């Protein structure tokens, strides 16, 4: 009994281990760009870049420190006049296609884009054969 009480007390008194930086977030992590058109461009890009830590979220949605730093970097680059697609290409060059939520047509991904058209074509051929057969009855 005494042991159990002690164990419960220990749980209540347990302190979480600090596992986050104590530095304030990067300047542009939570601040918009002064130029609304540029902010719009930056936001659109951030919504299609995957957070490296919480991988189900875009960096626009994530509160992970590394996502904040990436937002800062993207806003700085847009501010300096870089094109959003150039920034995406820069990130893909470093992290692979996985980092982007906007899949590109490449030698590996083209079947994904071609499959719907191939299936439609196949369906059309099958339907035509059936209709011809009916008409011939």
């Amino acid at each position, binding site marked *: 009994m005494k042991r159990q009480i002690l164990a419960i007390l220990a749980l209540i008194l347990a302190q979480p281990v600090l596992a986050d930086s104590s530095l304030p977030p990067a300047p542009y992590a939570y601040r918009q760009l002064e130029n609304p058109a540029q902010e719009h461009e930056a936001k659109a890009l951030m919504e299609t870049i995957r957070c490296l830590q919480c991988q189900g979220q875009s960096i626009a949605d994530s509160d992970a420190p590394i996502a904040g730093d990436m937002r800062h970097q993207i806003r700085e680059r847009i501010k300096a006049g870089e094109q959003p697609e150039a920034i995406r290409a820069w990130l893909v060059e470093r992290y692979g296609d996985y*980092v982007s939520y906007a899949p590109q047509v490449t030698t590996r991904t083209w079947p994904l884009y071609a499959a719907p058209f191939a299936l439609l074509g196949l369906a059309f051929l099958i339907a035509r054969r059936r209709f011809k057969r009916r008409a011939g009855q």
Partner: protein
Amino acid sequence: MTEGAPKRTAPWLLWLPALVFALFIALVAYNLRNPAEREVRSALIGKPLPEFNLPAALPGQQGLTRADMVDGKVRLLNIFASWCVPCAVEAPQLAELRGKGVEVVGVAIKDRPADLGAFLARNGNPFSRIGADNLSAIQFAIGSSGVPESFVIDGKGVIRYQHIGEIRPEQVPMILEKMREAGQ
């Protein structure tokens, strides 16, 4: 119906859609049980280290630049932080590597000099230089997605190997082997 009766579809063909559907379910079930690897690896292995120039993480000490990494010597670039728990776990392994003649250079991510000093006093300092990166900029530049991570950089400044997560005691020989390969 005797003459010109429509050709019947082969019976096995009728089962084809059901079979495709069953395969699809099996694929989904398999991937639900075996989620994809969660690590995002750097795509820069075998490519030269990008240009960078980091200020010193501790007052009165040397910072870290790309130029420091291209003098013909193989180095281990360790990305860490005082606030990162696994980084303390790998400290003895870094000390062991240091003892075996490996030059370890560090990048401290989003750290305060006082916190960093306390961390090194507690866990030992295997680093010949430590650069400070408060915006994770070098992480994005070399395709690193967290702390700790270690990169083997050869004497020409080419990234040869990326180790994600802490270096565990049983992985020290593997890191030494990667360093040796990079030196050839």
